[in-house]
């Protein structure tokens, strides 16, 4: 039975794309009008999402579109995510007007940002992996423009890496999906878990899973595909960074969740594989963030680290299996939701700084936060949430994932490894505290220069309201763990394949729960004061703190391995092979031809009498014609034709 509301799913995907085109057309004549159209488009999208939240089990199949047909569905997990997407898009679109007021190419920006909205909606609404992939690739492609928008050297460079990784890993995912479809006979997300049981060739299944994982992992900035993230998020305009960091990375997580909870649930190898990647990603990200000296880079590396935390949650829900993964599922959902909202607030704050000062280096924006209440409030909500401070939104997710690890240690065959995982988790949390403190010191503790102190009116009224609202959401989720946070957490149950009907109640303010956060924050303070403050920061001549850029420039996976490999080594080998093949196969014939080619071509000007029986160059064409060789040949051929016709007829 197709309900009218089912078509809203299609509307959510198509509308922003059409709206993007509308704003582009409008922008050719009137810039203000264009901005308002973009606002309207994203606000209508938000309204549409709010309108369909009350419906259950919406689904829509478009047979035959894009080959295999597109299938959309809406369950609880998807609901919460499309709501966040629509909200964040509306907010950043509104913010963009002020942020981009003096930028070039804004028409293009709005067009592609809105198209990305349609595509990411498609990813989160997809009911099968084919649909998911179609929109995922579209999203990768159109979001390229969001990264390259500023068109400075850094942006162009970052965008190259972004698109290259997206396409390389996207093709791997495509291959994986083909193999999976061949093995399981379906790509429908809800049917996978059953049909996968009939697959005998487990080795091939691993290959398929791994290939599919690549594309999503690259978007989710999982090591070693994280290289694009720090540069791309730094180079993009701040509202776009908020979306890239808060939402596009989650589209990658969406895919990883599908593979891990539908195909490889309860699979020890897969779980440990994910966990190892997660540990590397979260630790490396946090470490890079501590060393970074550019506020957006700190936030970008922080995103990478946080995505590692989320992947830990996914690894745990995979390891614990459908009957025990309640905590892990809730933790993963809450962590994802929390991180999206936190990064929105923080990147908007970074945007405010850039909008006012046109600078992002921490040393140049010292003390910007002083005396700016809303800015400071937003920063505090975001930053403390990132640290996992109780009463803020990040705390609950982090605690739940931590509890899930502890839960697994009790039943694991090799508890030592999971003990190690737990401590990596806590230490990464400690590093999170360090970079948050570093940002705090630079933005609030340090004294501002005269130029920085002069920015008083730093944001317009509408954006102030939005920023405040976004920060209050963080506080609200954090302050009502049972009424709000748990409810959000439960929304993921069916999607992440948790079969429990009643849930573990967790006392979020018991000693056990607070212990993890306490260790992280306490350890963080220690590391900050014995390592970061003395080693990575110094005082300048006025006694104010400065950040030192100490991360070795050469120590960069992209420059050390990826770029040389993909730009130089592989093309060289390939081109050598291709040229040799070409030479061997076509060489002999070409050689003959080149000998023939050396002979002189006869030009008309050189020999006017060519083809004539005698010198006729003085005469007109009409009298010339009958005496030519061609004419004789033609009459002869005509004669032959007549004879032929006579014989046949």
């Amino acid at each position, binding site marked *: 039975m197709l309900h009218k509301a089912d078509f809203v799913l299609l509307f959510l995907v198509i509308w922003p794309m059409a709206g993007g085109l509308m704003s582009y057309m409008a922008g050719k004549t009137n810039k203000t009008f264009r901005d308002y159209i973009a606002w309207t488009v994203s606000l209508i999208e938000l309204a549409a999402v709010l309108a369909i939240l009350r419906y259950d089990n919406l689904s829509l199949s478009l047979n035959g579109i894009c080959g295999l047909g597109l299938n959309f569905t809406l369950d609880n997990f998807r609901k919460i995510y499309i709501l966040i997407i629509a909200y964040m898009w509306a907010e950043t679109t509104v913010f963009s007007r002020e942020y981009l007021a003096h930028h070039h190419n804004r028409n293009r920006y709005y067009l592609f940002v809105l198209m990305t909205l349609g595509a990411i909606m498609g990813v989160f609404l997809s009911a099968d992996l084919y649909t998911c992939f179609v929109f995922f690739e579209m999203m990768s492609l159109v979001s390229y423009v969001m990264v390259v928008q500023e068109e400075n050297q850094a942006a162009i460079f970052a965008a190259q890496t972004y698109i290259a990784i997206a396409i*390389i890993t996207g093709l791997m995912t495509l291959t994986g999906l083909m193999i999976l479809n061949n093995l399981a006979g379906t790509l429908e997300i809800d049917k996978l878990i059953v049909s996968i049981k009939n697959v005998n060739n487990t080795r091939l299944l691993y290959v398929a899973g791994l290939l599919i994982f690549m594309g999503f992992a690259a978007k989710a900035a999982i090591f070693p595909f994280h290289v694009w993230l720090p540069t791309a998020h730094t180079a993009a305009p701040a509202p776009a960074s908020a979306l890239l960091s808060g939402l596009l990375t989650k589209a990658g997580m969406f895919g990883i969740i599908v593979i891990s909870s539908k195909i490889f649930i309860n699979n020890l190898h897969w779980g440990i594989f994910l966990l190892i990647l997660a540990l590397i990603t979260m630790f490396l990200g946090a470490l890079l963030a501590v060393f970074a000296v550019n506020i957006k880079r700190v936030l970008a590396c922080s995103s990478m680290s946080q995505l590692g935390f989320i992947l830990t949650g996914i690894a745990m829900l995979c390891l614990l299996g459908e009957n025990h993964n309640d905590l892990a599922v809730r933790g993963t959902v809450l962590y994802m939701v929390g991180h999206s909202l936190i990064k929105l607030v923080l990147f908007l704050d970074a945007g405010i700084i850039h909008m006012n000062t046109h600078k992002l280096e921490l040393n140049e924006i010292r003390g910007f936060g002083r005396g700016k209440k809303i800015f400071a409030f937003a920063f505090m909500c975001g930053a403390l949430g990132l640290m996992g401070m109780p009463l803020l939104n990040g705390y609950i997710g982090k605690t739940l994932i931590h509890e899930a690890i502890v839960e697994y240690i009790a039943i694991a065959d090799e508890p030592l490894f999971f003990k190690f995982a737990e401590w990596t988790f806590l230490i990464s949390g400690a590093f999170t505290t360090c970079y948050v403190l570093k940002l705090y010191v630079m933005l609030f503790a340090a004294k501002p220069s005269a130029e920085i102190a002069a920015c008083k009116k730093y944001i317009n009224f509408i954006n102030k309201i939005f920023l405040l609202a976004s920060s209050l959401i963080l506080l609200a989720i954090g302050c009502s763990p049972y009424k709000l946070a748990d409810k959000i957490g439960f929304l993921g149950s069916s999607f992440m394949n948790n079969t429990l009907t009643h849930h573990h109640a967790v006392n979020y303010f018991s000693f056990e729960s607070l212990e993890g956060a306490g260790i992280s924050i306490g350890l963080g303070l220690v590391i900050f004061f014995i390592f970061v403050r003395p080693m990575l920061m110094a005082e300048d001549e006025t006694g104010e703190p400065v950040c030192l850029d100490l991360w070795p420039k050469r120590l960069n996976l992209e420059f050390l391995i990826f770029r040389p490999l993909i730009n130089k080594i592989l093309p060289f080998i*390939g081109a050598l092979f291709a040229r040799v093949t070409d030479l061997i196969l076509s060489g002999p014939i070409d050689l003959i031809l080149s000998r023939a080619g050396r002979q002189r071509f006869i030009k008309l000007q050189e020999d006017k009498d060519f083809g004539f029986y005698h010198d006729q160059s003085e005469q007109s064409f009409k009298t010339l014609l009958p005496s030519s060789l061609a004419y004789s040949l033609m009459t002869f051929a005509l004669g032959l034709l007549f004879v032929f016709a006579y014989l046949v007829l």
Partner: protein
Amino acid sequence: MIAKLLSSSLLPVLFPIISGVAILLRPVNENGDFIHDDSHFYVGAMTFISALLNFAAVYLTKSELFILCRITGDLNIAFKIDGISKLFMILLAVIWPLVTLYAFEYLHRRPPTGRFFAFFLATFGILNGVACAANFLTLYLFYELMTFMTLPLVMHSQQREAIRGTVKYLLYSLIGAALALGGFCFFHVYGVSTEFTAGGVLNLKELTQHDKDILLAVTFLTLLGFGAKAGLMPLHSWLPTAHPVAPTPASAVLSGLITKGGVIAMLRVIYFIAGAEFLRGTWVQKALIALSLLTIFTGSMMAYAEKHLKKRIAWSSVSQVSYVIFALMLLTPDGFVGALLQIAAHAMAKSCLFLSAGVVIYFTFQGANYHYADQLQGIGKELPITMSCFAVASISLIGLPPSGGFVAKWFMGEGALGLGTLGYVGVAVLMISALLTAGYLLPIVADAFFPGEDYEYNDEASLTRLPVKMKLPLLLLSAGAILSGIFAGWLAKFFESIAAGIL
């Protein structure tokens, strides 16, 4: 009577050829351009009517055999419109008028137009003949005619390199055709007839092992021969030489459609003469898959290493057309559907790509017939519509969703996976080639639209306005490249019904 005439393939084949000859008779000046202003109108009208005739024939046909004349014994010149002919005729009818429209503008500065349009229109008819041929002899006849009719198009500029390219083209095509003719003789002796029959003309029960061995070798050689037109290795080397020297509208149809003439010929031999059953699992299948994979990789790699833009696109054709051959040789329904989808998607995308490259030459490198890939910094700001179409066509060629190329690749991959190890290698090569395709097309798009901060913007007024004769074909073809993906489900269903008849 009229309905009968329209539903046969006689008019689609003969009308363009006759009108082409008629155009040849129109007076031209010393440059070879038309003297009368209305000549373009006539050419346009004739092309339009030809396209309409194609549609009419596809719509009205009852798939009956139409014998034009008897040569000797059981050898006829005969036509029949089946599913494959329909696909090709529709593609022709869509793309040909668009490219002709584009050529009106483009050839403005590149005489001689009279000769060009005459042969261009005649080629349309010949290609219809290739598509509709009902037996091997007719196919061979039109295949040879296709070579000769396109010669004047390739050597249009009459410069030294153009003539050299043409000679190469001629030589390779003749070698190919000679191989095919040899094949014809054998099939005529061994087969029940040489009429195209679903499932092949060989009576497998009566053939001895020795006969089969001979026939396999013959099939292989025949396919290699027809492969020359499709740019299949080892007879591929004319393609990157001849396509770039031709004027852009000719390059567009050479790459987009005429290479497909070779593919159609191969398809006929594989599925209608030798038969899928005869070839399945034999060394011929493996060898041709290996050759096509080699071509796919080498073509893409050479395109990646090539700086000359038109040559790069030509190398890309070498690679992309071999996708079709690969998919055809899989001999599975999925592979077959993928092959036909790829034919449609590539025809539109590649024509669009060449036409866009042509616009850049036309406006920016006046007088030249080529330019290099790295000369296009910021060209997207000056020719936004052109480069957008270029970008869309690139997406289809790479095979990214939601374009036609993507769906085609999906079906080809699914078809290949059933084949075992060689199939897996095939999928891997397809993906590597897609990656290389992205590598040689996307940087052009990126440079064109994102030249960097230092780029000096021209003010709106001084921007070149794209003439509508160029804009329309570009927009429609790039829309076709996307729409052939979005509505691929219906196409695939149609192709599946064809596949069910012959597999």
